[in-house]
């Protein structure tokens, strides 16, 4: 489970809100260049935080309701959920070191 898992919107509650571990959700879409840029960085973070954080990808194209519920108006947005609540939001492409620091601080 060290790779980000693509989930359907219907699975959001089960996979994110009710998850035991903190979950980093990568809100992305196929039309978004910076989302593609950040993907390999998120994959590396998924390896490094294996066992501490689970990583999921949600394509906003098929998850408009969830995106709107969390006020997503810019992608990529990485949102960290703990016990069903969003605790940290990172908008746009950020280098890995910065993302890692944010994750470490939020955990």
């Amino acid at each position, binding site marked *: 489970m060290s790779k980000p898992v693509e989930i359907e919107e219907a699975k959001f509650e089960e996979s994110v809100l009710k998850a035991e571990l903190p979950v980093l959700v990568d809100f992305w*879409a196929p*039309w*978004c*260049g*910076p*989302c*593609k*840029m*950040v*993907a*390999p*960085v998120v994959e*590396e973070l998924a390896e490094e935080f294996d066992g501490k954080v689970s990583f999921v990808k949600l394509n*906003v*194209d098929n998850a408009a309701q969830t*995106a709107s519920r969390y*006020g*997503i*108006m*810019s*992608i*990529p*947005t990485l949102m960290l959920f703990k016990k069903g609540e969003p605790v940290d*939001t990172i*908008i*746009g*492409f950020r*280098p*890995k*070191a910065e993302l890692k620091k944010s994750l470490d601080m939020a955990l």
Partner: protein
Amino acid sequence: MVKSSKEYDVIIIGGGPAGLSAGIYTARARLNSLLVERGAVGGQIINTEWVENYPGFAENISGTDLTEAMHKQATKFGLETLVAEVTGIDIKGKQKVVKTSQGDFPAKAVIIAGGSERQKLGVPGEAEYTGKGVSYCATCDGPFFRDKAVAVVGGGNAAITEALELTKFANKVTVIHRRDELRATKILQEKAFKEKKIKILWDSVIESITGDNFVDTVKLNNVKTQKKTDLKVSGVFMAVGFKPNTGYLKGIIELDKTGTIIVNEKMETSVPGVFAAGDIRSNSIRQVIAAAGDGAVAAIGAEKYIAE
């Protein structure tokens, strides 16, 4: 963290069209070549939906497809790619050491092709509302503004391309431009003037961006009449220029006053064996074809430098 300390012939920093073209040339020249890119390859052009002016593609090609093809081509010839953030370059005589988040990598020659990123406008509310209506990427965020009114700030190619892109989603697109004419190329201007959803506010600057949870108003000032007005919008797309990614090069390589790397016609920088290519170098015209051309010039320069 250090993955390797073997010396490369050439290290290329940045995986946009300049870096990828350089990689095609250096790898084909049988130089051990490493490309360091902080994310996926592609550079700024991946934000462009259709590239209409790169020769050879009479049918449009997307920025992503074009750069993925370049990367495939370079990889075929042996270019290695590393995902890492470059933090500095140590010049030790003939050897250069590229310092990255994944370790330090020595090389005989370095080609800097790290490109640029969107300039911030620098007005109150901009940082606060980033991701809450303020955006730097119309192709990414346009769909979130379906049937809403948006503003685009700027008057160059990026601004007008984004305004046109946004007409697919927004019901009204107001271009806010500080001058009384556009800098964008004529074909884009013609398209913008013909598009009913686009309105251009000339001689106007944003003084602040306001709202509650999300943007709802931009406060404008007309620079000629000093008349202040409010414009109701849900989104503000910034296209006010670019700044080069040269922060880590200050004091190592000569930069001009805008922060771009000073080069000669051989793409040589102030440091022998260090070349620059694409949007990051001084007087770049910021076009894919120019970046690709720079990459080839820099690669051939690096090859000659190593042979000497």
